[in-house]
């Protein structure tokens, strides 16, 4: 018997989720070795129509969002609004260890295939349900898309956030870019699911894991800032400074973009390197600046000077120079910058996958490495219903005629 090489080898996951959060959770489990069967409605996951697409020409097999979020998954279609579809769903779950789903609370219960029913048939099933506000509470049935869940988490109210963000006190609070918040909810769901899997393996017990996206964001990303209110009476917003004391976070404007720096003004060694590297302050002021309190009181002047220094440099030059002075600095990097990053390429962060329709592309991989294991090329995201034959015929024993009938009757 071969010892498993990846943590979730042999674990069987069924994913019935769309757009970003649920699929990101499924993707993380797949990356760790789980077999993930993704169930899509016959018309496909909504992310297939989101894009972005090559040339902005919509095509359900070429959506970058779908392609990225659904690597390493087998893809089948099922119509749960149909009783025959629900029967197939139940049969599929008999062989599954984990179900990840994002239906509205109560939806699966009303169809007779909710957690209680599933657990009766398979007590050790781990079911992770991802919804905007969780399975209970006064907002349980509130409608929320990704903009709303992000702002529900409390971080939006605090954005933009950087030195000078008080300039925007009169403007609307902001969401995070792309679908980062939504994907992060999926990350929390993956963590919660992994914890439940550990319990399942240790005790043979299943459970219903309740992910409220609001909580997933608030209890993590909002953890420090929001708890300032009940404990210190502070309501953080974009009108208040990020207030990290002697750590000054700011953006420097370089010739081709911005570099953000996090400057520890208390650190003597760092200060000396910075002075040597920039040749400032000089003359009589050197001594004055040696006092950390003086530096803190003149933080704005220090940052202004570093900014002038940065103006004449590219992002990349400023980044490497500042790091050589011992300053914590990082460019505001674009997709192009990141794809070309020598650091990421040395770590083989981008891995190639060949998709039958979308072609060969480089995909961002897991943000961590396990010793003795290189990052793996993923299997590409499935075509719509690509593995219907494999799952319904080969594994579940239905004939090809039966599957054709299913398709004709909109069961799959």
């Amino acid at each position, binding site marked *: 018997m071969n010892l498993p090489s990846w943590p979730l080898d042999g674990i069987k996951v069924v994913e019935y989720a769309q757009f970003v959060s649920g699929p990101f959770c499924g993707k993380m489990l797949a990356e760790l070795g789980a077999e993930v069967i993704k169930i899509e409605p016959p018309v496909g996951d909504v992310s297939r129509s989101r894009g972005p697409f090559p040339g902005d020409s919509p095509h359900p097999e070429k959506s970058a969002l779908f392609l990225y979020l659904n690597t390493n998954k087998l893809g089948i279609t099922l119509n749960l609004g149909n009783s025959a579809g629900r029967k197939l769903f139940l049969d599929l779950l008999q062989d599954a260890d984990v179900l990840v789903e994002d239906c509205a609370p109560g939806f699966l219960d009303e169809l007779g295939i909710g957690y209680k029913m599933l657990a009766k048939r398979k007590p050790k099933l781990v079911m992770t349900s991802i919804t905007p506000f969780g399975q209970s509470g006064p907002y349980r049935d509130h409608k929320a898309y990704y903009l709303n869940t992000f702002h529900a988490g409390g971080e939006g109210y605090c954005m933009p956030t950087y030195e000078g963000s008080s300039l925007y006190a009169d403007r609307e609070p902001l969401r995070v870019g792309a679908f980062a918040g939504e994907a992060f909810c999926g990350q929390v769901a993956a963590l919660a699911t992994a914890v439940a899997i550990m319990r399942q393996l240790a005790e043979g017990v299943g459970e219903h894991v309740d992910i409220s996206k609001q909580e997933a964001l608030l209890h993590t990303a909002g953890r420090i800032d929001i708890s300032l209110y009940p404990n210190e009476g502070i309501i953080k917003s974009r009108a208040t400074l990020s207030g990290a004391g002697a750590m000054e976070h700011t953006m420097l404007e370089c010739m081709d973009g911005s570099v953000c720096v996090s400057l520890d003004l208390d650190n003597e060694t760092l200060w000396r390197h910075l002075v040597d590297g920039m040749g400032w302050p000089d003359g009589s002021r050197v001594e004055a600046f040696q006092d950390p309190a003086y530096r803190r009181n003149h933080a704005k002047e220090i940052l202004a000077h570093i900014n002038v220094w940065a103006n004449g440099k590219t992002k990349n030059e400023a980044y490497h120079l500042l790091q050589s002075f011992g300053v914590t600095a990082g460019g505001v990097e674009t997709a192009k910058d990141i794809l070309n990053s020598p650091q990421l390429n040395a770590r083989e962060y981008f891995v190639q996958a060949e998709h039958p329709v979308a072609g060969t592309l480089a995909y*961002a991989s897991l943000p961590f490495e396990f010793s003795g294991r290189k990052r793996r090329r993923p299997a590409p995201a499935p075509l719509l219903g690509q593995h219907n034959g494999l799952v319904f015929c080969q594994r579940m024993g239905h004939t090809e005629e039966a599957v054709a009938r299913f398709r004709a009757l909109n069961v799959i």
Partner: protein
Amino acid sequence: MRGLVFDGIRVVDFTHRVIGPFCTELLGMLGCEVIKIESSRFPDRTRVQQPGPRRDGTEQSPFALSYYDLISRGQAIHLNKKSIRVNLQQPAGRELVRRLISVSDVVVENFSPGVMERLELSYEHLRALKPDLIMVSISGMGAQGPEASYRGAASTFVAQGGIAHLTGYRDGGSTLLGVSGDLMGGTTACFATVAAMIHRQRTQEGMHVDVSGRECHSSLIGEVFLDYQMNSRNGSRMGNHDLAMSPHNCYRCKGEDKWISISVATDEEWKALCQVMGADELLTDLRFADPVSRWTNQDALDQLIGRWTAGYTDYEVMEMLQRAGVAAIPSFAADELFHDPHLRERGSWVVVEQPTQGQRYDLRLPWRSPGTSSISYQRAPLFGEHTTQVLEEVLGLTKEEIASLEKQQVLI
């Protein structure tokens, strides 16, 4: 007996600042015994950092070691941990932690790559001591690569991850995410740690887990790297807007700095919104007749909607629109989140005793499940609070041995 699956797992915690400590806080919440190694030689900044100026302009307490145990930031991310004082500069101090690690399961650290090696506490060193040890190293860039020695912080993870470029007003610069960059990275690091624990549970093998802060953020926006490859473009900031949905923004409400997020995905929701606003004329306005036109003219649309929302509080707008099936959720401020009925019913806020001033409020684990329902929350440890207890109970040292270590300046 708490019955948490992580009971009995001992974590030796070398982390500092935020990303590492939040990872270990999650482990502590899940039931691990987390032993935080601290030294007055290198105080953890989260014990010292100020939360920021108060809204009323009054001064915060000045930095001082005596405020070590009272600062909000530290309190919020060090729940459920023990703290012991060990001077790692002393060989006897390093020997002490080696002994502790030999009877522990997990080591977590977020020093700059190379530090643990210099302390003779690298994975190679420790694996010889405890072959099935799980060691988690968290750094900005990862443990290997040309920039592995570069410094990172929450702001640079988000900037170099690619999220900052995509976040901000359309007509403004990039914005960072504040400390949430650390908190999101710490969550991902915890996921990787639990994965390693599952692996060890199944194979009795340990692992070294190498987590990169910047990669954690890139992995949340993987589709943008595909978009670049498909279309040679980097994406751009768009405030709260979306590439397809409209209206999709935050709108000012009655009261001081109150905002509602509204997101409309379908014609049905658009009609419902117009009806609630009493703005039937919009239904026949050619500028907003279909999704594409609405998107094209969304700036005008935003203005119209903002004029309506300004007459109501954020909660009123949420209630009216939710009743009509429109996704509307406030951009919640901290005070709202603390008093919000949904979060109250979900039990988001937990009370822990504060070291000197009664109680403080913190946010519980980011999800709900039966397997985690018996979690209890303990306040952050005072500096070195458990030194004697841990040395006696875990390492079996006698009072004389401990006194001798104190005299040698090992326990400072």
